[in-house]
């Protein structure tokens, strides 16, 4: 229960059920309101029951709230015409207008699945066998593999749910940009050849596809509504 300073109480007024600034009244009314709705939060604690017995304002409020609730619930619902046909026609027209756009995104999603598969296939020897060229130590090759697997997982995640494309892009942009820049520099320095660097084209393709997906209309968030907020309720 909240402790209220007795000197802070307002001077008594004729009971009208008007809202007051009083914390006790506010808590009592919140509990009464929840009770009217058959909800247990906030609960009618002993302190609140005591307050209700003493406070004439809240007693009036309770009565008014009861009447109001009944009145609203008994309000006759207007009979509405069935507009299913018009609504369905509008939806179908909208969908066929969006068809080309949607097929681009579907293609981009499948493209990402392909990019992920190619990436995994290319990196498999490095990750499992530790082989990534004669000059690369086995452990370094495996670590290289780990990073590439992460990139592939990013592609797959975005392909499964396009809303993740922006997040995946955050990872793919620096990785791909560095790969390309390093490939160019190292080719110029003679450390590698462009042919040896061709597997990085997969990363470039993945980056491009992620970009296409992330430009897509940000649809309504998927159907899971915030369950977490329920646990935090109180």
């Amino acid at each position, binding site marked *: 229960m909240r402790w209220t300073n007795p000197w802070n109480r307002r001077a008594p007024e004729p009971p009208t059920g008007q809202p007051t600034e009083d914390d006790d009244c506010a808590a009592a009314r919140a509990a009464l309101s929840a009770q009217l709705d058959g909800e247990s939060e906030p609960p009618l604690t002993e302190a609140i029951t005591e307050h209700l017995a003493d406070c004439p304002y809240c007693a009036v409020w309770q009565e008014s709230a009861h009447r109001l609730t009944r009145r609203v619930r008994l309000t006759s*619902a207007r009979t509405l015409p*069935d507009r299913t046909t018009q609504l369905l026609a509008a939806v179908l027209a909208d969908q066929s207008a969006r068809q080309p756009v949607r097929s681009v995104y579907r293609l981009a999603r499948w493209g990402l699945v392909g990019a992920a598969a190619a990436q995994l296939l290319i990196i498999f020897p490095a990750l499992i066998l530790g082989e990534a060229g004669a000059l690369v130590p086995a452990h370094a090759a495996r670590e290289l593999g780990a990073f590439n697997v992460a990139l592939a997982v990013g592609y797959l995640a975005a392909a499964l749910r396009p809303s993740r494309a922006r997040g995946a892009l955050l990872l793919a942009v620096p990785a791909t940009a560095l790969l390309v820049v390093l490939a160019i520099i190292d080719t110029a320095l003679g450390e590698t050849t462009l042919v040896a660097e061709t597997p990085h084209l997969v990363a470039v393709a993945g980056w491009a596809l992620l970009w296409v997906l992330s430009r897509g209309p940000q649809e309504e968030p998927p159907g899971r*509504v915030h369950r977490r907020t329920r646990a935090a309720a109180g």
Partner: protein
Amino acid sequence: MDELTRLAVQARRGEPSVMASFIRATQREVYSLCAYLVDEDTAEDLAQETYLRVFRALPDFRKESSARTWLLSITRRVCMDELRRRIRRRRRETLVAEFSTELNAGFNTDRPAPAADDDQGEVRELLSQLPEDRRSAFVLTQILGLSYADAGDICQCPAGTIGSRVARARGDLIQALERGAPRRTEKEVRRDAMD
């Protein structure tokens, strides 16, 4: 899985007859929420906009969630967008009105508020004076009969917050009813100020 959620999952395949059943089962609630949160004149348009967004988003709908709260949260978002649009427009119009009163005193473009012609209209009139968050909480729980938890999912806030908003909305409405006449709308206040 409830019946409506099953219907939503089936409607993902794009079969028009299933889509029609989903619309038929939900249109009244969608319309009603639009009418209470915005107004009756625009409710039909808002309901249509809602269904366009719903079927665009349907491929991402997951069967673990409730189709009803999912649909109503999209409906509420459509209504919020409309209200925001109106606020912007009103601001612009007020600016224009200030200029035009200087040029052409007494010129008034405001439409009269639609008359409350029956019980439901009267309740709606009362509710339209509530702040938006309280109105949403009140309409969802009292008129559509949702639990605090479901209303919280729709408004993206904890169930406890819905509870206190409903309680405050009740307080506001009781006060408005006690005062007899409904409170003057913002529009009326502005009109009087301009006279």
